[in-house]
């Protein structure tokens, strides 16, 4: 299991719509961060590979998303596997 915290910077004209679109994505939940042009995004995936794909291939191409900024990545599981 990989967990990534990110925020998406969105066009303020489409914030609500954009957030609704993001909520539809598998493994993605959103949360409010009290800022009209940002949406908090939590990504839970089987691996960091998958989480990264979700950011680069899915969230980034969601209409209204200007950019996605991962802020927190946990690598404990990966290292447990390596060890």
């Amino acid at each position: 299991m990989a967990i990534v915290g990110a925020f998406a910077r969105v066009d303020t004209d489409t914030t609500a719509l954009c957030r609704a679109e993001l909520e539809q994505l598998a493994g993605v939940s959103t949360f409010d961060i009290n800022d009209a042009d940002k949406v908090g995004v939590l990504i839970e995936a089987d691996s960091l590979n998958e989480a990264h794909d979700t950011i680069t291939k899915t969230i980034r191409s969601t209409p209204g998303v200007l950019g996605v900024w991962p802020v927190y990545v946990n690598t404990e599981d990966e290292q447990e596997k390596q060890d």
Partner: protein
Amino acid sequence: MDNSRREFIKTSAMASVATVAAGGSSAVAEKLKEAPADSSVQWTKSVCRFCGTGCGVMIGHNGNQIVALRGDPGHPTTKGLVCAKSLFLPKIVHSKDRLKVPMLRKDGKFVPISWDDAMELMADKFAKAIKKHGPDSVAYYGSGQAMSEESYLCNRLFKGGIGTNNVEGNPRLCMASAVGGYVSTFGKDEPMGCYDDIWAANTIFLVGSNTAECHPVIFDQILAAKQAKRSLNIMVLDPRKSPVVSAARVHLNPIPGYDLAVLHSMAHCIIRDGRHDEEFIGKNCQFKIVKDGKPINVGLDGYIKFLEDFTPERAEMVSGVPAEKIEEAAKLFTYGPTMSIWTMGLNQRTRGVWANNLMHNLHLITGNIGKPGATPFSMTGQPNACGGVRDTGSLCHILPYGRLVKKEDHRKQMEKLWGSKPGIIKSKPGLHTVAMFRALGEDKIKAMVMLTTNPGQSMPNLHPVRDAIGKPRKDKPFIVVLDSYPTRTTEIADLVLPAAMWSEKTGVFGMSERRYQIHPQVKKAPGMARSDFDIMLEFAGRLEDKGAVKKGYIKGKFKTTDDVWDEMRLASRDTPYDFMGITRERLYKERGLRWPCPTEDHPGTARRFVKGDDPTLDSGKYADHTLAKGDVKFYAAPNQRAVVWLRPALGPAEPTDKEYPFVLSTGRVLEHWHTGTMTMKAEELRRAYPHCFIEMNPKDAREMNVRSGDMIKITSRRGEARIRARVVDMPRPGMVFVPWHWEDKDSLINFVCTDAFDPGSKQPEFKICAVKLEKI
């Protein structure tokens, strides 16, 4: 990972996002503290080790493992934001292929040897070369990724101990033209502005800078500033439609190498329309042209006459940029405050210094300088090219903190501080990077040490460089490489020494806005790896033992990087760099400080050359008590006036022709950094771009019947590469773009690039060379 742990991590992740999204405000930062305590992970403040943005990070570590990384919400400029590369640093540090033991090449194969044998051999080879062939038979090639204390120590050893100015580093490949621009215009290197200016600007001019991918945190700040102030104008000057263009109001896309005409034409329009600032010019500027090798004053009238040749219509004929776009850009530039940001698109050019001068010209004639939001700002590509190499004087022609080898008083100052033999520092610059590797190939250099860099992949015109480093021959020069990973350079070295990595050693990085920040050791290096500092310190001591360096010159003077830092502060004292006030204690406590910072109670300097902000104008030889707060004074320039240079609008060294009809430009992608030595270690980043690619404009692709995925052979006068096509409307027609991160032989685009260099900065023209393409 059990459920409670997972929930804890999710809470931490959300709190981190909330904190960062709020710009690190203290109210939201409290949320992080409210998260359940996790005693197994210790968090330590540090700084990212990739680009020159200098993002503050928090390293989560448990014993000898780094288990997590997050942006530091308390960081004053990056406010907790980091990019994907940074977040994968824990995986990169723990990569299984780290170098762990010293290795010596014997009969063509590497064999492990002890540290004692390795250091003795290294010192012996250097000492014998110095004795037999003189000090200039050895050389040092460093890096904008080494710690400041490491670069300073090596510079001290080679220039003031051994007595050679053959001291260079990879910032020559990325920053040298910016240095030349700042020095020739303002008299001293380094930007005068800071990241705060992004938020105060009304116009941001991005020039030759794919900020979205190469400095993504800065680009987010630009986007955020645009969201906060919808009237913010963003302009882009770049032949490639990089991702920054999506945010731009105006995109000027010149034929690669012909943008100097565009910049002159903007100046022409500004003055023609009376939008220049005559009062600022009268107080602060002078106008010069070089004739018969000498600079001559021409005055504003001479400049106006010079610009007559650069009407927008004429500039369009030269550059391909429509005249009306040049007119629009010129107007927007005067809707200040205006901040220009540029990187390699200007610097990696045979006319790089001139291009930098022309950027400064626009700011000077409009008075867009020295005020919040108004500044010409060259971003740096490495984490410590500024603080570590430019500031410490670790290039062949300079000495620490703005001093020059050609100036006798500067040499004497450093010899005195260092305790060198009087007269040992030579007045003649050593070999610059391209010349150094050419001399190596001619066996004029007999022993060379390289650290924290990968010239076997990163140098242009790579065939002769790789031959110089590794081709077996009689009396071949002895090459020592210090690195954390196996690279295309270690594979051809004679002696490879395993080096500690970021988070495994303590030192200072100085990033683009003159902010010095400490990154502390939080774990041990793997195996027998040691810090570059420890290795070079022992090397210096052994050279003293062998009589190649004066006894006691370095041995016994320094034990840790803390000791070196104190001497560096002394070296900066009474110079415009003065950072006597940036003590180790402050670096640990605060989130970096911007020099000048002369006393321990000084807050650091946001903007240089500005009365009330820059302490250099308050005391010392540049003090001026007649100025009012906010007045600008270019105290280091000749006659204390910045120079507006009248430079010829010449094109690239290798224009296209019938045989080589395309322009090749190289650059980076978001997920990778430089030669990929680190970022390719994270599977997630590698998978983002598993293969190299060549971007082709759809028009060119149609004419060659090329589709995305087709294999293309790219040939220049120097070499060839074979890379998959990516047909996309990004490069302008006639131009192709290739990122340079992949190390497999077919993708090594630097075999193709030219090593033609700027005659002033000696920086090679990575951005432009002529190639032919063939679908294979």
